[in-house]
């Protein structure tokens, strides 16, 4: 309910203090209250002003896009290239104004948040959820360097991320005139596919071509362009002033490398002779949109499929040939086909045995044979190779092998059930097995269709449990947050990107518009990007964020005997992240008992669905759950499959 506005400044300040006091210490629930324009919220029993979304948001949404044509600025020329190349979203913070505003003016959905790093993570997650190029932007100097961790994470995840940043002017280079002077390109060396400081205004379109050639071919990785003022603010009266101002069909091709027929024949021969073949489907299958071809090959030759990578669901987990939840069967595989496995494990990191033979399909010949010795390499677009292999393979039946995989799945599920039963035995706090199992029940065995909800799988210790229970029934239904780079903290940033992907129905998220996403994180992770709950709230991106709150970093268990330094690994106990979320316009739930978890999750989901607000479910656990004597303790993992996140 909307409260009467107080006119006195001192009263207003006092009210804020009272509100914060209630928010942090009080046990009373807050409730949504409509503010001006029907979009505001306030804490009940306080006289605080309601949290409102400014009317400019609606005005922006309703505005007609400007018709931009020559004369154009350099920023506008670049923005046109982004639009024509199909960039699907921009995530940024203020800064790099000319470029950001020009991109927004093309109609590319543009989101602004609290921290460049978090928004860069959002763009990365958007790529992982959609397979499309997303852009991110920050201002020169600090804004750009805030993005470094996120660029590195996107690089490790092989995301087609377009990193844009303003960077002073060419004229003032090296002078330290003003503030925020820094060389950007050396900073992203080693964490990008291509980078360039643009210095010649008339080549801005040409360098957009350089960027998109890299983003749209081969193995995707970030591309970083920095824009001095001379580029962004250059003025072009007509196209003749621009170099290589061609349609994209003239500066790059969508053609993909196809496999050598001899290599396909050799692969088919190996697979026909194999008793227990398996396919590992990873990023490349997703980015080549190869999931239909994957399924056709698997079904024709009856080859089980297990997934790895930065997103999951290219092969439905409920298919009889899915080995995603059959870790016990992996070591039985005699021939393994690694498809689009860009991030290669070393020996022993995947659970296949010492006698396993490997076929690797990858668009990049330079990478084939790295880390894991191969028996056969196939240089090809993944989808093209899968189609060729399907054509080359006869129909085969491998009933004993399929039965072995099914038995391994049953063993795994029985083990999960055992963990859940053990978790229910703890009633002084909520055990991670309870969270994981009951979340899975809610998503896949209740009123919701099992393929509906996209999940951002984040967190550290909690993820050791939730990964075991979460399932993907369609492409990119799970976005694998910590994949390879292992950053702790991007999760709420990732949630923005995933929620935006679903909200806009981009790529394989089409058809799921309007449905809340689920994001899982820990209390350590929430500390990094929790402020972005405000970003989710102001854009009305429905996300339910589950915070596993065990009062400690995940590192605590390994350091607990180090008495002097132990506080490094600890937080204050029983922190109220739910109240923090409420103060940022979200719905909050605080759960301290296992029996209360599912009802709280349901309430949070309903708020997200019906009010299009984010909700934070703060689940109180305790750090001792990671100890071996408190069974099941901290869980290990087997890769590939549902538990994988290293590769």
């Amino acid at each position: 309910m909307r409260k009467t506005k107080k006119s006195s400044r001192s009263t207003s300040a006092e009210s804020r203090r009272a509100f914060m006091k209630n928010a942090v210490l009080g046990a009373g629930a807050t409730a949504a209250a409509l503010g001006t324009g029907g979009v505001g919220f306030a804490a009940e029993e306080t006289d605080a002003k309601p949290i409102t979304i400014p009317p400019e948001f609606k005005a922006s949404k309703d505005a007609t896009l400007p018709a931009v044509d020559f004369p154009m600025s350099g920023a506008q020329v670049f923005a046109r290239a982004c639009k024509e190349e199909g960039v699907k979203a921009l995530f940024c913070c203020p800064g790099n104004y000319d470029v950001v505003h020009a991109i927004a003016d093309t109609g590319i959905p543009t989101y602004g948040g609290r921290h460049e790093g978090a928004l860069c993570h959002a763009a990365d997650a958007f790529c992982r959820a959609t397979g499309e190029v997303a852009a991110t932007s920050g201002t020169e100097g600090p804004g750009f360097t805030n993005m470094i961790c996120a660029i590195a994470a996107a690089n490790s995840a092989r995301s087609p991320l377009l990193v844009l940043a303003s960077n002073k002017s060419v004229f003032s280079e090296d002078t330290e005139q003003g503030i925020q002077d820094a060389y950007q390109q050396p900073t992203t060396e080693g964490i990008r596919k291509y980078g360039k400081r643009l210095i010649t205004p008339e080549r801005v379109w040409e360098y957009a071509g350089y960027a998109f050639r890299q983003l749209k071919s081969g193995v995707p990785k970030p591309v970083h362009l920095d824009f001095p003022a001379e580029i962004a603010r250059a003025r072009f009266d007509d196209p003749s002033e621009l170099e290589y101002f061609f349609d994209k069909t003239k500066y790059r091709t969508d053609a993909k490398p196809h496999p050598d027929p001899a290599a396909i024949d050799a692969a088919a021969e190996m697979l026909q002779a194999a008793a227990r073949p398996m396919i590992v489907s990873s990023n490349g299958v997703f980015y080549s949109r190869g999931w239909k071809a994957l399924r056709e090959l698997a079904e024709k030759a009856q080859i089980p499929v297990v997934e790895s990578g930065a997103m999951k669901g290219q092969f439905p987990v409920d298919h009889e040939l899915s080995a995603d939840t059959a870790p016990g069967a992996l070591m039985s595989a005699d021939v393994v086909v690694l498809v689009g496995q860009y991030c290669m494990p070393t020996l022993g990191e995947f659970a296949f045995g010492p006698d396993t033979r490997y076929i690797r399909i990858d668009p990049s010949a330079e990478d084939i044979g790295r880390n894991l010795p191969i028996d056969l390499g196939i240089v090809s677009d993944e989808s093209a190779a899968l189609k060729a292999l399907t054509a080359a393979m006869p129909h085969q039946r491998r009933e004993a092998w399929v039965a072995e995989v099914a038995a391994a799945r049953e063993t795994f599920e029985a083990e999960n059930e055992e963990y859940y039963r053990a978790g229910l035995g703890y009633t002084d706090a909520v055990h991670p097995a309870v969270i994981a199992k009951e979340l899975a029940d809610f998503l896949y065995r209740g009123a919701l269709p099992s393929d509906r909800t996209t999940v951002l799988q984040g967190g550290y210790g909690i993820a050791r449990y939730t990964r075991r229970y979460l399932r993907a029934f369609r492409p990119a239904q799970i976005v694998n947050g910590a994949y390879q780079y292992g950053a702790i903290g991007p999760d709420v940033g990732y949630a923005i990107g995933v929620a935006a992907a679903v909200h806009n129905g981009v790529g394989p998220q089409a058809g799921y518009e309007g449905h809340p996403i689920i994001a899982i994180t820990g209390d350590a992770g929430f500390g990094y990007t929790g402020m972005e709950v405000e970003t989710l709230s102001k854009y009305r991106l429905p996300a339910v964020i589950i915070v596993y709150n065990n009062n400690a970093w995940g590192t605590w268990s390994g350091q607990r005997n180090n008495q002097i330094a132990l506080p490094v690994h600890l937080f204050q106990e029983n922190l109220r992240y739910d109240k923090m979320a409420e103060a940022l316009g979200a719905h909050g739930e605080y759960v301290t008992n296992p029996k209360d978890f599912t009802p709280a999750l349901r309430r949070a989901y309903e708020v997200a669905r019906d009010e299009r607000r984010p909700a934070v479910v703060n689940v109180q656990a305790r750090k001792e759950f990671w100890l071996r004597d408190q069974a099941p303790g901290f869980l290990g993992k087997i890769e590939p499959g549902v538990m994988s996140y290293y590769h």
Partner: protein
Amino acid sequence: MGGRHLASKPRAAHENGLAAVRQCLQSYADRGVFRGYTECSERLGRVRFRFSWLARNPYDLRYEAESGTFMFLNVLPNVAGHSRLARALRAFVEARSSSTLPPHRRIDPNRATVSAFVQRGAMRLRVVAKRGHHAYGANRVINLMHEVYLHLHCYFPEYLWENYGVPQD
């Protein structure tokens, strides 16, 4: 003549066994599974194979041709005899001969026996090949070590953090 003939039979069997074991282990090295693969003779007819393998650790596998015994010497340090870990690993290793396992995962008791025991603070894995099944024994002991490593990954990750340098993350 006859005496010489009788004496040469076991020696020939030993040589055949060693050749089969060498061929098996060399094939892992040739395929890149092992790195830095070397062989050295010890006293009493023992041969020790050393190679870098899982987690890039050095592995010492001792082979006794006469008895067909394979034993990993240095792979599971810091295991107390009556610890939960020791009990779990012993049970896991013994279960490798269970008829409930698929044939390609089982250690066939007709061709080899398997055991795990703690000696001087370390757990040792032993496979004894029967009736000349030495190549089989070599293959099974390598697969056994791999299965144990996976088992530790899944159920005792902290052991690998502490003893194998596997990252806690």
